């Protein structure tokens, strides 16, 4: 009997184009199958360095994002009140004219009065440069509320970071510690990596209050109590020190462990590094019992010890101080155990496993390499312990020090950029910290003048702060002020509420791009909406003008005065540049582009081109020729190819030079974009084997990296386990130095600018009553949703159309809460109502939910009664942007005191069964008009 025949040779497409995905920040390479110019299918690009052919749940749903009914289709001008959703469609010319007049006025009077913040921006190379061309210091992307704790802790300690600038050595690692990660930016690489570890049977340990996703497949799960990782890791260090399981050679040669620290209490030099006249750090040479210049060839210096200098001053090696800190009883496993909710025996066992893997199970690759002193190493020694950490660490007010503690652990085990350890991704490692300082000091902001430097950078001492003589912050978000001195990514989460209070000053134009600040990226949503709509006595808005570029009908669109609709990611040019967050692999630098794969069918324009156009209309020097004509008439693609940051260095490192054959440095290549397209829209330069490890001290690499423009001159990047930078702030707090903190800040600076990492209780937990608010409340990234923008996706919303509050079974029983009960969750700041689900695989003191699933009725082109709005909810309503009042009535932002990182996960709550069991979450906001196409 014959069976039906099926067509196994279908060809539903007539063309396949490559480009880069933008369904999240991972930036995988994709192949888009097209039929008569419409998208049929999207798959991972096998040749792409980032994802090597795989694709994730979001990426494969790209079609539904691209065709979303929530897409904006024309520039909008607000006609009603803010939030009323009354807009009129206008032509682009009118839109750009309005924007130009607003911006010109600000630039001509006081450029600070433009606050330009760009959220999920993948073109920070352009936007940051644009801001400094404009002359405002008030620029940042989302880093400040995202993971600056990771970036800063890494960059101030070892010249790289967990946050996008590094990755575990998936190929060789045998033991993997994963701290506080549910998904991460490297969405696909992490999954591919975990798959590789599983294949090789490496042990995966996940430290996480919740046992889902990555934690679910981990070989061991440590259900830690939120905010206590610093203690846990401190205890691991404690045990390793107890048993002298330390990589002494790595410490003495490649870190500042042997550097001598001056111990001279009360003096201006107390805690500073002992240096020679040339400023080179000194170490103790035990053979001569005298100091010698650090980083020189010869017998290794003393790793431990206190010494007296000929002039009588006392000095101590920095590692001695670190050992003293972590051998303290307060870091003993037995002491931290109850606080972390981890048994002491477990901590000791894991320390043992770490030591065993690092020292007994070490690996040697047959790769000779030469270190910065010219020492030739016949083999490359590897300590196969890798670690990765993200927002579980960073989203706490003690995240900076906790992250530094993790780095100290890695460094003590000698696992950074070694086979099996945690590796840098070029252009990292960079100098500690990178040699870029933020501009915007008093006097640096001048009408109609660019800033003398970039708005964001890395400061090394109080002199670099952006404060005036009285210590008043110069940035609207108070970044680089005494509130948050090392705020390397700015503090986007503070902008709107500061601006509405005129603290530190009033602004005129708030210009935002790609950030849903009126909803899921705001702490304290109700007050943020208040702030956006606040009025002066005369009836005008406190924030007079708001320009916003979004591509979809998000919550925030409703609070803007002028809306510049953007394209979808399949309709525009983009460049994923090493001047921004690199997509590089550990084995070599990489960058990529987006090309428009479909024609525009709406009256929208790519934001980057609009920004360049605006820049020219305003007359920004970098965007205008001497004769007043546009420097980049071709818009963004023109800029990508022709812009040079320094001679031969542009946004894209690949296919440079007249012949398109040079990499890194090279003349502008007019055919560069074509070259990228022909190469699958990416460029990847694999490093030779001898340049792949120990790159912070690998002579050949450092030399090459200098040529490539990654660093100014080839100098070793000596890990700063002891941070002299922090000590300088501490000295200022003690009254030493030119720039001193105002009285009210001194105690705080003195406490939190400890040169050696330490653990302290997260602020909110320390400030509110534990009886009133006994539980932690946190969120996790759902793998198939990207923040707010996944819910408009017809496919993804079927998977996760609403969220629940997950409560531990046992704890729920104690609280008299049954599965599916509706509960009130109350913080010191507010109350929400939501529905519970009970489970066991989570820390008992913690409740959690999926992030950003809750939506506002009427947004995202969804029916007003969509479950996202009626049953979904956000924890954000409970999270205060400010901490409770401190002595002197001053309210610090709810952030890390060092970096200003938003402390989302410090949230403390109480959970009670709701009297009102009606099937609707609370608060419910007024339904807004659907602005979708």
């Amino acid at each position, binding site marked *: 009997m014959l069976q039906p025949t099926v067509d196994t040779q279908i060809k539903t497409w007539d063309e396949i184009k490559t480009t880069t995905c933008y369904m999240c920040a991972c930036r995988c390479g994709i192949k888009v199958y097209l039929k008569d110019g419409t998208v049929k299918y999207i798959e991972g690009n096998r040749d792409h360095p980032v994802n090597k052919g795989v694709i994730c749940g979001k990426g494969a749903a790209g079609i539904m994002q691209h065709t979303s009914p929530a897409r904006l289709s024309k520039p909008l001008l607000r006609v009603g009140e803010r939030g009323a959703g009354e807009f009129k469609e206008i032509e682009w010319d009118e839109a750009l004219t309005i924007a130009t007049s607003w911006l010109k006025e600000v630039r001509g009077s006081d450029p600070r009065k433009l606050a330009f913040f760009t959220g999920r921006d993948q073109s920070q190379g352009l936007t940051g440069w644009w801001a400094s061309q404009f002359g405002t210091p008030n620029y940042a992307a989302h880093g400040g509320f995202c993971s600056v704790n990771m970036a800063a802790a890494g960059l101030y300690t070892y010249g790289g970071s967990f946050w996008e600038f590094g990755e575990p050595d998936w190929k060789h690692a045998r033991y993997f510690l994963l701290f506080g990660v549910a998904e991460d930016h490297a969405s696909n690489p992490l999954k591919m990596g975990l798959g590789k570890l599983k294949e090789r049977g490496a042990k995966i340990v996940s430290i996480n209050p919740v046992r889902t996703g990555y934690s679910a497949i981990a070989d061991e799960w440590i259900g830690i109590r939120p905010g206590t990782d610093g203690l846990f890791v401190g205890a691991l260090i404690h045990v390793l020190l107890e048993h002298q399981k330390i990589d002494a050679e790595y410490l003495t040669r490649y870190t500042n462990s042997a550097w001598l620290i001056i111990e001279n209490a009360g003096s201006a030099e107390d805690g500073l590094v002992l240096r020679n006249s040339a400023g080179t750090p000194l170490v103790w040479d035990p053979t001569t019992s005298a100091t010698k210049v650090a980083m020189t060839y010869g017998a290794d210096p003393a790793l431990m010890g206190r010494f007296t200098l000929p002039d009588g001053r006392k000095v101590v090696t920095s590692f001695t101080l670190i050992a003293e800190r972590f051998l303290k009883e307060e870091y003993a496993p037995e002491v931290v155990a109850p606080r972390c909710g981890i048994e002491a025996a477990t901590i000791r066992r894991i320390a043992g496993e770490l030591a065993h893997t690092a020292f007994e199970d070490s690996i040697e690759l047959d790769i000779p390499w030469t270190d910065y002193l010219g020492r030739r190493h016949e083999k490359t020694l590897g300590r196969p312990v890798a670690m990765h950490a993200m927002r579980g660490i960073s989203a706490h007010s003690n995240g900076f020090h906790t992250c530094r503690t993790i780095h100290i652990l890695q460094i003590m085990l000698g696992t950074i950029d070694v086979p099996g350890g945690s590796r840098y991704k070029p252009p990292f490692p960079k100098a500690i910290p990178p040699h870029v300082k933020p501009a915007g000091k008093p006097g640096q902001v001048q009408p109609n003048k660019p800033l003398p430097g970039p708005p964001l950078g890395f400061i090394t001492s109080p002199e670099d702060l952006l404060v005036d003589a009285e210590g008043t912050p110069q940035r609207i978000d108070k970044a680089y002020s005494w509130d948050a001195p090392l705020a390397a990514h700015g503090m986007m989460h503070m902008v709107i509420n500061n601006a509405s209070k005129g603290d530190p000053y009033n602004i005129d134009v708030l210009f935002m791009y790609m950030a849903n600040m009126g909803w899921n990226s705001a702490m304290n949503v109700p007050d943020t909406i208040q702030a956006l709509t606040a009025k002066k006595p005369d009836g005008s808005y406190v924030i007079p003008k708001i320009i916003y570029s979004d591509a979809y009908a998000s919550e925030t669109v409703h609070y803007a005065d002028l809306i510049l609709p953007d394209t979808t990611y399949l309709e525009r040019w983009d460049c994923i540049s090493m001047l921004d967050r690199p997509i590089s692999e550990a084995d070599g630098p990489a960058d990529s582009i987006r090309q428009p794969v479909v024609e525009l069918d709406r009256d929208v324009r790519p934001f980057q081109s609009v920004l360049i156009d605006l820049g020219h209309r305003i007359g920004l020097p970098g965007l205008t020729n001497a004769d007043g004509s546009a420097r980049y008439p071709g818009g963004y693609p023109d800029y990508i190819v022709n812009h040079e940051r320094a001679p031969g260095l542009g946004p894209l490192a690949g296919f440079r030079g007249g012949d398109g054959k040079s990499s890194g440095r090279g003349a502008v290549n007019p055919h560069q974009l074509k070259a990228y397209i022909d190469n699958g829209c990416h460029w990847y330069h694999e490093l030779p084997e001898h340049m792949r490890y120990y790159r912070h001290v690998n002579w050949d690499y450092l030399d090459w990296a200098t040529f490539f423009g990654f660093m100014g001159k080839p100098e070793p990047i000596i890990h700063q386990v002891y941070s002299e930078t922090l000590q300088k702030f501490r000295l200022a707090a003690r009254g030493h130095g030119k720039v001193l903190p105002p009285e009210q800040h001194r105690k705080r600076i003195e406490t939190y600018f400890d040169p050696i990492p330490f653990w302290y209780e997260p602020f909110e937990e320390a400030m509110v009553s534990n009886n009133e608010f006994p539980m932690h409340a946190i969120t996790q990234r759902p793998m198939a949703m990207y923040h707010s923008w996944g819910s408009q996706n017809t496919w993804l919303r*079927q*998977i*996760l*159309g*609403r969220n629940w509050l997950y409560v531990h079974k046992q704890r729920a029983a104690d609280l008299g809460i049954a599965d599916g009960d509706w509960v009130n969750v109350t913080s010191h700041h507010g109350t929400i109502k939501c529905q519970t689900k009970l*489970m066991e695989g989570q820390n008992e003191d913690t409740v959690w939910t999926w992030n950003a699933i809750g939506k506002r009725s009427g947004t995202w082109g969804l029916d007003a009664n969509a*479950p996202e709005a009626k049953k979904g909810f956000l924890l954000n309503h409970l999270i205060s942007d400010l901490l409770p009042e401190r002595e002197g009535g001053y309210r610090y932002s709810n952030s890390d005191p060092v970096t200003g990182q938003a402390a989302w996960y410090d949230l403390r709550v109480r959970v009670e069964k709701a009297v009102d069991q009606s099937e609707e979450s609370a608060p419910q906001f007024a339904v807004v008009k659907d602005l979708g196409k």
Partner: protein
Amino acid sequence: MNPAYSVILFTTASGAGYGLLALLGLVGFNHGTTSSQTFALTTAFIALALITSGLLSSTLHLGHPERAWRALSQWRSSWLSREGVAAIATYPVALFFIATWSGLLDAPALIKPLGILTIIICTVTVICTAMIYRSLRTIRQWNHKLVVPVYLAFALATGATLLPAVAIWFERWQIFQAILAAVAIASVAAIKFVYWRSIDNIPRTHTTGEATGLGKDVRMWELPHTNTNFIQKEMGFVVARKHALQLRKLVFLFLAVALLATVSTMFATPYLAIPAALFAILAAVFERWLFFAEAEHVVTLYYGKAAV
């Protein structure tokens, strides 16, 4: 399982129809052409009307009714296909039978064999219908030895109560019909009682652990999607236990009334056969609703049910 009204109507109406037609076959076999032709024609008409309405409702309920004819092709393996074939085959047989009876076809010798044939084809069709459910390993309550008897008994009972209800209009009412109906109703009640007892007591040995192969201590954490899907709508239907018990009582009540009415026809007026028939059919409808509502599909183990 989701009790779709089309299927309930189909199985009850056509069941009654086949029951009635089969009995007409019996009458024809016994009395041959001597018996009233108008009675025969009317009864046949009613039977075929019931059968046809049932078949139509189930056909129209298909995703592609216009393709229904294809369902006749797989009689080798599929009970649904067999049922279709049998159902179609019933028409010519029944028509021949009636034609000979009514003298349209002048072959009096054939009426007896055709009567028998009618009985057989009706029985076969009802068995096929029952086997569609009986053969499904995925549903305990259906994969049960009493399912075929239940379907046959209900077809007989509803048919047998209809027969006298029609017969009275042609002065063809006979005590024998009443006795047959009474016996049929009683046996339905008996079989159904045993059936329900049995499905209440079958051990729910299939567990989520067994379905997922993940060991003893397994419970559903998250459904694949937050919205309900086809599987949940179609197989996930659950009827509250106490609700079900009440409905069962109703079924027995209706059967009791039907029985009482039928018995009374022998002593009081035969016209009580009409309410008897109505209540028998009502019982069938409720029973059939429960037959679906109480059926637990093993797939629910993947969707949060601990055991079936």
